[in-house]
């Protein structure tokens, strides 16, 4: 060893003693590392196999409970009728004040039938679609308003300006729908008449509309002013009376 240190072998690319001292100085942590050996061949423990087998069974049970690919049968019950839970009285839906109950119905009809032209703020666009906010026909006599909704309108509107043609909306509209939409528009978007157009009034409006001489055609301003400037027949409803929000029948306070 000592001879080698005095006369390092010129064929060797590395001076052993120099390299070794540099290793212990600069790479001590690397030098003391151990080599990785990976080829252990210990047998797999029986307990591990048993535990994995139990878990496989559990997982199989979960998959089995999953049923078919798109089996909605267990989350969606066809023909489901709302019933009271066991041991509880069926209280039904919570009653609402009449105005709010009618307006909630009307909001749905508005977004389905009116929103497209008159807009979500009911201001129309000023040229082809008139505003409903502050309109004399909306806020005024209810029969005139009902006739426009049910039959549509051609020619000039309440301001005297002619906008586009309003198509009839009455097809398939129930008295409940008509009462809701009228109450909603008359009490929303800045309008605040404060009264409720009841389903009885709406029923009367639908009858009046069917009995028109020119039934099936759109109404005009002239026809409205001639025969429809009156309130719809029917008993007025206190806007604060409590109603069942689904059926709109009178309800008792809970």
């Amino acid at each position, binding site marked *: 060893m000592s001879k080698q240190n005095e006369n390092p072998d010129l064929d060797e690319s590395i001076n052993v003693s120099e390299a070794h001292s540099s290793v212990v100085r600069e790479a001590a942590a*690397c*030098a003391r590392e151990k080599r990785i*050996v*990976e080829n252990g*061949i210990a047998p797999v423990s029986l307990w591990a196999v048993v535990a994995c087998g139990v878990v496989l069974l559990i997982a199989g049970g*979960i998959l089995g*409970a999953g049923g078919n690919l*798109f089996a*909605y049968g267990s989350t969606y019950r066809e023909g489901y009728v709302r019933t009271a839970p066991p041991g509880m009285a069926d209280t039904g839906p919570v009653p609402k004040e009449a105005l709010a109950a009618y307006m909630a119905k009307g909001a749905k009809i508005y977004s389905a039938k009116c929103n497209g032209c008159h807009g979500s703020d009911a201001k129309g666009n000023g040229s082809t679609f008139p505003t409903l906010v502050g309109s004399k026909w909306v806020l005024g006599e209810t029969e005139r308003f009902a006739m426009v909704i049910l039959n549509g309108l051609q020619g000039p509107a309440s301001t005297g300006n002619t906008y586009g043609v309003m198509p009839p909306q009455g097809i398939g509209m129930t008295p409940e729908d008509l009462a809701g939409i009228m109450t909603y528009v008359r009490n929303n978007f800045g309008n605040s008449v404060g009264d409720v157009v009841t389903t009885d009034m709406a029923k009367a409006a639908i009858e009046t509309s069917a009995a028109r001489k020119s039934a099936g055609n759109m109404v005009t301003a002239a026809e409205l002013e001639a025969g429809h400037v009156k309130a719809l027949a029917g008993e007025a409803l206190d806007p604060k009376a409590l109603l069942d929000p689904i059926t709109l029948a009178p309800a008792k306070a809970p």
Partner: protein
Amino acid sequence: MSSANTTTSDQDALLRAGIDRSLRHPVMFFLTSGAAWLAVSIVLGILASAKVHSPEFLAGCSWLTYGRVFPAHINALIYGWGFQAAFGVLIWMMARLSRKECTAAGMILAAGHIWNLGVSLGLVGILAGFGTGMPWMEFPAFAWPVLLFSYIAILVWSFIQFRVRPAGHVYISQWYFLAAMIWFPWIYITANTLLHCLPGHPVMANGINAWFKSGVIFLFFTPVALGTAYYLAPKVTGQPVHSYSLARVGFWSLALIAPWAGMQKLLGAPIPYFLPYVGAAATVLLFVPLITAALNILRTSMSSPETLAASPSLRFMIAGITGLVVLVVAGVVLNLPGSTLPLTQFSMSGYGFEILAIYGFFSFVMFGAVYFIVPRVTRREWLSRRLMKIHFLFSVYGILTVALIALFGGLQQGIGQEDWQQPWQSAATRAYPYAVATTIAWCFILFSNIFFFLHLALMWLRLGRRSSHPTLLVAAHDHHSASPHGEEGDIDNAGPGHMPAH
């Protein structure tokens, strides 16, 4: 002992030292900034946890409301700490295993800064109220391409090293690392494209989000941590890996099962009915790949009890693998659709499970790797055994409390939620004591990690001990053993480098 042998092992040590030197700056950058983000995340976690039981705490500041602090906490934990710790460990271990020096340290460092910038801007975005509201993807939409780009710029060099490596054999850790490096971009691109670029039905978007969360845990953090543990266990003990065939079973079953997990969180939601059940079954089945890997690593480490007692890397790594065992058992117990899943679906159990995975399992293994890697890349030994012990004990107590409380408190909370005849308040009342304990436990973890960060920062400044003796958890049996801070008598003594590895 022949001189030829000495020369080979010296050359070998010099090669390893060269690899370490080539990666010093990127590795230390990732580990240190990761540790800093970890501390930030824990502070945010304490704030979020305190708001669960004391809602009026800091309620006046909109930047610190629960809806912003909680996502900031979890995103800082994942992208600030988790990914950066993974980057530091991945690039170092891939270089070591491929036996190639890194030639792109500058590029990696630059990409690491871009990653940090992305995380910082994303967190500011969340706190300013621009979070997306998608769990674990709350960063505003600008952040994900930045993170993806820097991810690729950081890790592509490890692929290149792997391609040009001298030997043909592929070690177990390399399987896991390569898989993790490919799996993460897959789930990240899939989830972000489907949620940000091609938004579909919001219910299904929720399902994709749940799948992404599960994927980050089981397709990135888990393989990275297992690869690291498979590196550390035989390296530190010098014993062969317990069973090679068990390792193969563990890897391939993970690859087959993990991508299916996640959608069980949408049990009862109107998505295709089998998806939640497949998710639950896959999460339960993850028991098989993870318990086999844990068993293999534990048996390998246990074969050398002396090293186990002395080595900080091994102690942290074993604690992490123990966390993995708890995690997989909890995965089975909490995901039974008929009984426990409805209780844990919307309660704090989910959070407990995630924290157990990220901190109790992944982070502990990363700490083990940090204690192994840093002395090599800085060529300084850890300063203080006491700091290591503080880090270990407070972390263990903290994570045990956070995870177990969130798991079982979550069950209590779930029972309260399911009892629909009681007001919602009763579920909150059931969860209250657990929420208080969680805050206290996070304070323990913060305490432990402030010491960890300081210790690491001192090492980064190269203020570690200059010694050829490692800092071990128990004093070596010689006359130097009196000092609690290790072998200070050996400072720069260039003594024989034959102490056991740590």
